[in-house]
């Protein structure tokens, strides 16, 4: 075609025109030439395109329409494939629209529909006249490109000016069917742009919904679009028509659309289910088309959880899908369908457990992802240990990406809602440590967050945390892996904060100062050095006090913050303190101090201020300690030397426990008098609310929050800082952590957990399968020991959780408002008049109560005759037809009925379900007229 055009061009151009245009058209590149040139210059395409564009710019201005056409054709080609802007050529496309040569016109329309858009094309109104002319043409090859342009590039003005022409095309019996079909589709963008035209368009569109209409496919398409993209409520009165199509239509494309429409409508009118169950089951049984079966599955899983036969059938079909070994598409969709199930039907997931676990090894990452999601949905308190351990082992053998996906899933699931699934924190902490050993590990930030979070929230986990931190810190190999740096930072912080649980603090100091720490980024190094500071303080305090109070009650309790009420706890501490005492001799401490000096002196000149400052702090402490006499074995210095004073001050700086900060702490602070917060800032409200970052992770090292043991502290000779804190606490009790909560938890020391090692040698999926044999089942086993207390703040306050989806009420947009007016009230009555008849309105509402209760009682009576319904589909057909026509009359009939005062106060259960909506109606939103809607559909439901 392009070659033809170029010869036409050269012959036509000889007949006249200016010399430059003559040259242009004689030597103009044809489209084929251009494509060949582009193909032969794959490297230098951009320079070639530049040249081509320059040519086109010149050619397109030609007065010769052949030259212009060819230029436009080339430009359209380049623009659609090489992302070139062609809005500058809009006028030239418009110039060619009226051409009498069909090829020119087609190209002009194609070019326009590919590039025009109201936002970028100012010249769009210029096309109005030509489009109208072409719409009116009896020739389909003219009207259908015009419809395309109207559908894709229309502006509100254009839609308004052309809506009448579109309507006459839509309803004209003379126009070709496929043009009318296109007109039906085009009416959707026109309706959206001009909602007022709903009044004239909708009756025609509803007419096209009949099963015998040739326009049915297009009508089903646009109603599906309307129902699914906006407020579905106005379309409820059309349920009988949709139902009719569902029963009679044999076209799978149309049936899929109708099922999608019903999926939305059922949410509004649950009683529709009764009408739909049988046809849908029939489709699932009979239809060979997987696409249609899948759509049925979707409707059943999402909307019919309580219809047993349908549900069983759907579950069977899903099994077939998942078992399709040769078709990854069906396997994916099968898993996808299972993920739609609500928690109540998890048995259906359970039935497919084997296949789901196998899918973890599928070659397709998308399928693996779905399988993982399903498995994580099946995790409960009693199987979390097994499933997580299995998955972690499985992650070792997966590819890096999926491996991290698994780890992420475990981290998210286990930490959900303050670790509600975790009963045994020792297990969980060692699980986190095990995760880190995965060669593909990349979840450093999350593991860091959780380690610190658990440290602060769960007292019982601290000794295990210290053990894990020690293992991580001591291994020099881990320092190389940049993904682990964040985890190491958490380990260092934990080792500093909870050092009292350590058996060998000196070993940890050595680990923190090992030469390879130079591989760490400076923020992590700063944490390391700070941890050294805290550990040295602890050791020295212990060393000084242990000599004095060796036989009486250990004084460390005061400093460690551990409770002394539990006797077993005290004995373990005594044992540990004996060990520690042996460890912390003046000799070993001197050794450590020397080590610190060697390691940190170079850092006191570090470029990074954080590192430098902390290094200097530690060095200062060492200098201070070295300046005082304590190295002799003489006891005197321990009792009243200067050293004791220093040690007390130093350790009191770190003695208060850090706790989690409430997410709402800031909000509870009273606004000081005289501080205007809201003036002129009310606009920011919205923004601030959206950016409300959960602050529970933020740890402030400077302001230490005193959380418990308050009485004890006060009876002790309190240092300045603690007494100040106590005073502060008295004043602002509200913002402190609750004291009782911490102490109410059981202090029983959790046992060592060895579950994680049990399955470490598994190699294949089959083994994984065997092991999950029981684990996915939700068994009710009693936990071996009580769950430790997890400090939660703001209980009872709604926390933004990821699992709870924010369901948005469909807002009544202009179009659905217009549609509601047409479908509920009929064309002849204006909605404004309706609304003014408020008296009438309230009366009708009262009547509605009675009619609904009638409907309900009838529904109850006819609970059995489903078989009858199937048999008499032909008689029902007639009934529906008449109903469709009489809908308006019905409405009016009901209105007259209500004047007779047919009132009843009976409230049905259905009515109760609609309570919310009714409230909205009552609260002064008359446009949400529910009454006519129910009336229109009630006969259908009978």
């Amino acid at each position, binding site marked *: 075609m392009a070659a033809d055009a170029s010869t036409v061009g050269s012959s036509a151009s000889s007949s006249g025109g200016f010399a430059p245009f003559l040259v242009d058209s004689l030597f103009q590149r044809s489209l084929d030439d251009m494509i060949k040139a582009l193909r032969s210059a794959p490297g230098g395409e951009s320079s070639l395109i530049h040249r081509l564009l320059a040519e086109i710019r010149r050619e397109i201005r030609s007065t010769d329409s052949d030259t212009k056409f060819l230029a436009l054709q080339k430009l359209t*080609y380049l623009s659609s494939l090489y992302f070139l802007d062609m809005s500058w050529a809009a006028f030239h496309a418009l110039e060619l629209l009226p051409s009498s040569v069909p090829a020119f016109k087609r190209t002009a329309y194609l070019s326009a529909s590919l590039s025009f858009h109201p936002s970028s094309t100012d010249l769009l109104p210029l096309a109005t006249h030509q489009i109208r002319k072409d719409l009116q043409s009896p020739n389909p090859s003219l009207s*259908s490109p015009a419809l395309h342009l109207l559908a894709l590039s229309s502006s509100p003005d254009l839609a308004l000016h052309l809506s009448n022409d579109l309507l006459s095309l839509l309803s004209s019996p003379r126009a070709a069917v496929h043009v009318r079909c296109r007109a039906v589709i085009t009416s959707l*963008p026109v309706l959206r742009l001009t909602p007022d035209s709903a009044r004239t368009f909708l009756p025609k569109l509803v007419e096209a919904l009949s099963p015998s209409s040739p326009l049915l496919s297009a009508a089903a398409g646009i109603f599906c679009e309307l129902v*699914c993209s906006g407020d579905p409520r106005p379309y409820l009165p059309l349920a009988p028509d949709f139902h009719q199509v569902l029963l009679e239509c044999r076209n799978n494309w149309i049936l899929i659309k109708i099922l999608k429409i019903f999926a939305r409508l059922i949410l509004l009118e649950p009683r529709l289910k009764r009408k739909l169950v049988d046809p849908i089951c029939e489709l699932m049984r009979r239809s060979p088309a997987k696409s249609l079966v899948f759509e049925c599955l979707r409707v059943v899983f999402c909307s019919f959880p309580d219809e047993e036969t349908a549900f069983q059938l759907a579950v069977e079909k899903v099994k077939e899908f998942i078992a399709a070994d040769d078709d990854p598409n069906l396997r994916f969709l099968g898993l996808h369908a299972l993920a739609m199930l609500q928690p109540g039907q998890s048995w259906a997931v359970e039935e497919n457990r084997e296949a789901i676990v196998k899918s973890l090894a599928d*070659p*397709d990452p*998308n399928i693996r992802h779905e399988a993982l999601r399903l498995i994580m949905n099946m995790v409960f308190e009693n199987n979390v240990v097994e499933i997580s351990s299995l998955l972690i082992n499985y992650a070792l053998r997966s590819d890096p990406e999926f491996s991290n996906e698994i780890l992420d899933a475990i981290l998210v699931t286990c930490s959900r809602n303050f670790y509600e699934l975790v009963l045994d924190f020792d297990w969980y902490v060692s699980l986190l440590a095990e995760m880190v050993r995965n060669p593909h590990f990349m979840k450093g930030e999350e593991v860091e967050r959780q380690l610190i979070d658990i440290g602060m929230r769960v007292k019982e986990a601290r000794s295990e945390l210290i053990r894990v931190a020690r293992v991580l810190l001591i291994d020099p190999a881990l320092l190389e892996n940049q993904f682990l740096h964040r985890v190491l930072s958490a380990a260092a912080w934990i080792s500093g904060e909870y050092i009292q649980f350590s058996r060998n603090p000196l070993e940890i100091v050595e680990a923190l100062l090992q030469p390879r720490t130079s591989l760490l980024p400076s923020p992590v190094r700063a944490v390391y050095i700070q941890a050294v500071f805290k550990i040295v303080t602890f050791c020295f305090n212990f060393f000084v006090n242990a000599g004095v109070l060796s036989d009486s009650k250990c004084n460390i309790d005061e400093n460690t913050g551990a409770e002394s009420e539990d006797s077993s706890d005290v004995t373990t501490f005594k044992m540990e303190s004996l060990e520690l005492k042996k460890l912390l001799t003046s000799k070993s401490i001197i050794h450590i101090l020397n080590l610190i000096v060697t390691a940190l002196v170079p850092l006191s000149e570090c470029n990074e201020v954080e590192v430098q400052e902390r290094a200097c702090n530690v060095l200062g402490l060492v200098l201070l300690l070295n300046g005082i006499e304590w190295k002799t074995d003489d006891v005197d210095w321990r009792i009243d030397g200067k050293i004791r004073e220093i040690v007390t001050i130093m350790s009191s700086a770190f003695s208060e426990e850090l706790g989690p900060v409430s997410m709402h702490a800031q909000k509870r602070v009273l606004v000081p008098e005289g501080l205007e917060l809201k003036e002129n800032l009310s606009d920011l409200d919205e923004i601030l609310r959206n950016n409300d970052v959960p602050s529970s992770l933020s740890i402030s090292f400077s302001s230490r929050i005193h959380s418990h043991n308050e009485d004890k502290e006060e009876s002790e000779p309190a240092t300045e800082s603690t007494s100040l804190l106590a005073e502060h606490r008295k004043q602002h009790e509200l913002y402190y952590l609750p004291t009782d909560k911490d102490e109410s938890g059981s202090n029983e020391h959790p046992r060592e957990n060895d579950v994680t090692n049990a399955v470490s040698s598994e190699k294949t999926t089959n083994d994984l399968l065997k092991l999950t044999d029981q684990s996915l089942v939700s068994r009710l086993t009693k936990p071996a020991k009580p769950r430790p207390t997890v400090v939660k703040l703001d209980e009872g306050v709604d926390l933004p959780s990821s699992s709870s989806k924010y369901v948005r009420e469909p807002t009544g947009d202009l179009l659905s408002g217009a549609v509601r007016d047409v479908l509920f009230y009929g064309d002849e009555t204006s909605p404004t008049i309706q609304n003014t008849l408020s008296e009438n309105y309230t009366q009708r509402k009262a009547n509605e109560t009675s009619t609904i209760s009638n409907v309900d009682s009838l529904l109850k009576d006819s609970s059995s005759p489903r078989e009858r319904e199937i048999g008499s589909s032909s008689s029902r057909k007639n009934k529906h037809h008449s109903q469709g026509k009489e809908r308006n009359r019905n409405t009016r009939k009901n209105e007259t009925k209500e004047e007779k005062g047919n009132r009843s106060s009976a409230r049905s259960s259905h009515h109760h379900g609609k309570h919310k909506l009714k409230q909205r109606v009552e609260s002064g939103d008359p446009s949400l007229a529910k009454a006519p809607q129910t009336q229109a559909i009630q006969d259908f439901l009978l």
Partner: protein
Amino acid sequence: MGIRFVLLVNKQGQTRLAQYYEYLTLEERRALEGEIVRKCLARNEQQCSFVEHRNYKIVYRRYASLFFLVGVDNDENELAILEFIHLLVETMDRHFGNVCELDIMFHLEKAHFMLEEMVMNGCIVETSKSNILSPIQLMDKGF
């Protein structure tokens, strides 16, 4: 709901046909096509034909050296779209006779017209091959 865009891309990732049913700026299109092509072309035969990308679901299928990629809304029926892709390919096959990348390159307009006959504003209107092709045949005769 409905089809948002149809892309034909070769093995090298070059776009051979692009039809959008919703407005995107050229920059958005360039970015979108780049991302989608990278995602889909990396997948192999044993993997399923559905990829989620941004707020779209991409349903794609490979025929010889050409990838047919269709972007749809998230709740569109994936299998129906696969059937649509197959229908598109069959239609092109019938017209061009064993369609290949070159046919589409050199007859881009015609490919667009075929697509226009099948899809209108993201909605499938015609599924009969002979109905789709009869206007195209008329065009070939010069009408």
